[in-house]
């Protein structure tokens, strides 16, 4: 079980401080793929940074922490304080752009073993890397190439291989397929899903594409303007969503073969710089009433393991 205890993450800028994640409180069962969805600026990437323990200026953790539910070799609980010591081996990160994460002037194989202790036998690890790459049906020659010699899809597969080579407990993926074509995207998502099934890692998967989430996420977290607004099993969030924002988001998507007229959501997300009262979605919400504009809705478990932060979660649109 991974516990996010009331996380508030703050950016310090010349204009002052702004909370990009404002009070996210969740428990995620180990071995789940958690999809995180929301619009740009909703705080999903900042939440991943906090989970990775990559909290450096201008980002700071104003309150809360993460308990990862795993222990290190000495039996000490791993939390936000010591997660950085376990990068790569226990927690791994798959970025959006492989080109800016891989070093362009050294070969792929060296990047696999670059961070190892000097007394490790690199040749032996490389042998293991080679056989792991073959297990994933990737060409072993890719290891001897420089990043620019590989296609975008191949590079991102290498990133997936790199992130999973040490069988980490937790994998964080920030829009890992956004820059890729649909055919390549499908290949990578299926590869990641297969690895997860085998290793039973917990994956935090950020994407703005609801279709991608439907394909691979077990659970879904919907964020809006720095708040968590809905959390539950994928089948519930897609099939019987509680929050009007989730409903509008999934219903606004066109589908091939369906000629219904679709409507976008009116208005725009609030600026986090403004003083915000009540429900942050209220100005755009067709169900909003006076209580929504004055009282912030708490996350409530409306059905078993299905939470939403909405005063009118039981009503239909």
């Amino acid at each position, binding site marked *: 079980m991974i516990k996010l205890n009331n996380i508030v993450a703050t950016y310090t800028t010349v204009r002052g401080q702004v909370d990009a994640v404002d009070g996210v409180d969740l428990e995620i069962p180990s071995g789940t793929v958690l999809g995180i969805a929301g*619009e*740009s600026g909703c705080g999903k990437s900042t939440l991943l940074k906090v989970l990775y323990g990559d909290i450096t200026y201008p980002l700071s953790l104003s309150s809360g922490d993460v308990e990862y539910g795993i222990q290190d070799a000495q039996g000490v609980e791993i939390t936000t304080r010591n997660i950085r010591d376990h990068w790569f081996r226990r927690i791994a990160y798959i970025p959006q752009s492989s080109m800016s994460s891989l070093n362009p002037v050294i070969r792929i194989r060296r990047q696999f073993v670059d961070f190892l202790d000097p007394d490790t036998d690199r040749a032996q690890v490389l042998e293991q890397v080679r056989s792991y790459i073959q297990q994933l*049906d990737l*060409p072993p020659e890719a290891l001897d190439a420089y990043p620019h010699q*590989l*296609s975008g*899809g*191949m590079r991102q*597969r290498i990133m997936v291989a790199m992130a999973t080579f040490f069988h980490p407990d937790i994998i964080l993926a920030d829009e890992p397929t956004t820059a890729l*074509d*649909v*055919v*390549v*995207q*499908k*290949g990578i*998502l*299926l*590869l990641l*899903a*297969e690895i997860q099934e085998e290793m039973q890692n917990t994956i935090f998967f950020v994407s*703005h*594409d*609801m*279709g*991608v989430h*439907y*394909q691979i996420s077990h659970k879904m977290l919907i964020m809006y303007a720095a708040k968590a607004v809905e959390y539950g099993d994928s089948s519930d969030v*897609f099939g019987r969503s509680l929050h009007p*924002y989730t409903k*509008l*988001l*999934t219903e*606004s*998507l*066109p*589908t*091939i*073969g369906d000629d219904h*007229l*679709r*409507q*976008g*959501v*009116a208005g*725009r*997300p609030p600026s986090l710089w403004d003083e915000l009262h009540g429900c942050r979605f209220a100005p755009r919400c067709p169900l909003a009433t006076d209580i929504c504009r004055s009282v912030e809705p708490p996350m409530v478990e409306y059905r078993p393991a299905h939470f939403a932060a909405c005063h009118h979660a039981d009503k239909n649109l």
Partner: protein
Amino acid sequence: MKTILKTEKLHKVYKLGSLLRRISINALDDVNLTVQSDEPVIISLVGESGSGKTTLAKVILRLVDPSSGSAMIYDQVVAGAGQKPKHREYLSRVQPIFQNPFEAFSSYRTVDSYLETTAYRVVGLGRKEGIEAMENALASVGLKYADVRGKYPNQFSGGELQRVSIARALIPRPEIIIADEPVSMIDASLRMNIINLFLSLKQDYKTSFLYITHDLATAYYISDYIAVMYRGTIVEFGKARGVLTDPQHPYTRLLLESIPSVRRKWERKRMALSDIETKEFRFGGCKFRNRCPLAESICDEQRPPAIRKPDGREVYCHFA
């Protein structure tokens, strides 16, 4: 009937590499498209990155010259050999909308200065008519001139700024708007507002659109015609509904199967991957043959011709 869009034997070759190791990439390789209609239409151009869809848009927008062949918009040649319109006349008939509105507008200029340039310089309106044209154009995208005046791009959200760039394109009352991935940078909740706007502009302004996208679902939603491209060639072209609900080219099928839909889950199995992109640009026969389940020796040797189907679509496949 008017010829809304026609390309004939359109080729564009990009040369890469050093002096000694020259590589040519056929970004457009014999593209022949004809759309005729009396009504305004929305034509979608879909394909993956490297399919040539943006190059085709650039040729039509006269941002690059074709290596050979010609392109025609509303019965007039705009690129390649032939009688071409003057630049200003051309801009009052064909207008672009680009992918990222924050890159399209300079952050040091107010956005209304772009509208003014279009109204005064391109259309040649006077001060009073110019303001009226700007007001009308902004009203038709749901904005007010007073709210836009004197503002810089960073004061808008992406969706609003994209509306401003659509309004700017509308000022000359163009016959066709070329929109290159106009919604890919826009958040999901706002995307459909822009897409619906295209539909209402087609109705009210009688403007045709060339909608370039990799998103087949929105292409299905708004287009009348669709052309699917692969490595610089058209593989399937026809009425959007027909092509997307009953694809006949193996590549169109692969593309449709790969869309992550919220209706049907994928079968969980490993997919073979191709890593030969640059080679495919130079293939003589069918460019898709290496990934095609139907490929035979004829696909190596001959470029598949357009096979016309009863519903009017063209499929470029030996086994269609």
